[in-house]
């Protein structure tokens, strides 16, 4: 079985732990509970008949990615950068954040940008953010409704398998 380490990162309060819980346990809690350090767990999924163990690191949110200990990124095959569609502070500096992640992460790691909390915004707001943001997102999710959460990790898993082959 293939094992891949995936990092969930981004500013605090953007919903990384909620995505983590939704993906692994299929559950959501409205109450905000900050993550301290890192939470680690895994989920085995099957993609095209192949079993893939996704080892998810849910990292405590930091305003700037350079505050995250570099050791967390050791051996990470995938990095999921999450931001909150309702809070400009979580995406206003996204280009620099992604550049930093590319520099400190494995050169072959796959980076996904996720716009979370789609359940809290309408289409007009989404278009407004799309016009404003420096780097387009890869997927819009809602950890609350589960929208695109499984799809995000499955797509990332598929790309990781393709890259491994």
């Amino acid at each position, binding site marked *: 079985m293939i094992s891949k380490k995936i990092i969930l990162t981004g500013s605090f309060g953007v919903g990384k732990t909620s995505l983590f819980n939704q993906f692994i346990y299929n559950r959501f809690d409205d109450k*905000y509970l900050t993550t301290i350090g890192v939470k680690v767990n895994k989920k085995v999924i099957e993609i095209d008949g192949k079993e893939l163990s996704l080892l998810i690191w849910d990292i405590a949110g930091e305003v700037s990615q350079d505050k995250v200990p570099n050791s967390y990124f050791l051996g990470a095959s995938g990095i999921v950068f999450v931001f909150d569609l309702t*809070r400009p502070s979580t995406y206003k500096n996204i280009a620099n954040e992604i550049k930093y992640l590319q520099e400190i992460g494995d050169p072959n790691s796959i980076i996904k940008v996720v716009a979370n909390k789609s359940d809290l915004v309408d289409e007009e707001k989404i278009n407004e953010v799309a016009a404003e943001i420096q780097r387009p997102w890869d997927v819009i999710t809602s950890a609350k409704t589960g929208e695109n959460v499984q799809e995000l990790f499955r797509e990332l898993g598929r790309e990781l398998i393709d890259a491994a082959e």
Partner: protein
Amino acid sequence: MQQNEKTGIRHLSKFSQFFLLDDRAQLLASCDSIVATQHLPQRPVTDWFPFLESIFQQVKSLQVDTAEIHFQKITIPHHQLPGIYDFSFRRIQLREGAFLLWRIFDYTALYEDLQHYQQRRNELEIHREMLELRQRQMRSRRDLNDGFNLVLENFNHLQIAYFNHLRRALQSPVNMLDGFRPEVTLQAANATQYYIQHLSQLLQHLQSAMAEWQSYAPATALVEASHFSPAALVQQLGINFREQLGQPLAIQFASVLPERLQGDQGGLWQILAMLLYSAAAYHPDSSFELEIRAQVAGEVAHLTVIVRESLGREQSKARSDQDDLQLVTRLSLARQMVEWQGGQIRVSNDAKQLAIAIELNLNYRFA
């Protein structure tokens, strides 16, 4: 401080535990101070510990002389390690060979306090961001409203100016036509009277249109302040009256009349012209008089102008309902214009066959 008998590794009981691993992640020894390893299945540690699974390839590459790797504040949800721990990895050299030393340190109590503080800090920060966002939205909305109001105000000014311009452009010719019409009608031949009737209808349309335009231009905006001499204004009016109608206009000035006033000079001219030319149509033998006087109150001059016609309507003159309607319309227009300027108009006697006096009261500031 305790020392493991087998490996000689020292550790703080309860707060830390060591695990000695080979390169296949097989557990060789532990002190069992936090996790009871004797109950774990005889499989690689990575199988029951996802954190280690995710990092083992990197840990395995450690050499005896390379620095220890530290990971702080690790939580593994729903695991037999329920707290928050720090992990460290290093390769050590023992008699039997080089092995991986994994140590865990239980700082749960400390990190829970830190988590509590971090929770509060993050909540406050998110709250502050949301407040800022809301304030920015409110500012944007207010700016938008201000902008909209400015556009609306400019539009109103433009509208008022436009309709005022139309009204002013047409007022004098309409007054003149209106004044001449009855006299011309009497002297004209039948054929010409047909055209004059049409002209009268056209005049009525114009007067109606002007009344409508006035409704688009609020009273306050009609006042286009300019400096003028009330005496000079009525003298010029008298000259025009004589030139256009061939009749003299007697003008009575009060002994004390302000030299210069500030206000809607054009509007005053139009009102007086409208009243005089209308009065001129009453009787061919009428004489006309205009009296002007002022009463000063602080910075304001209360101007009173009285237009007098001596005979009233000619008894023998056949007058139609249309003529009466026109008289009412003209007086109504004059009244409206006076009221727009904040003044009053009073007709002291408008009964048929009697002399008419129309009194205007308007306020002006001193120039």
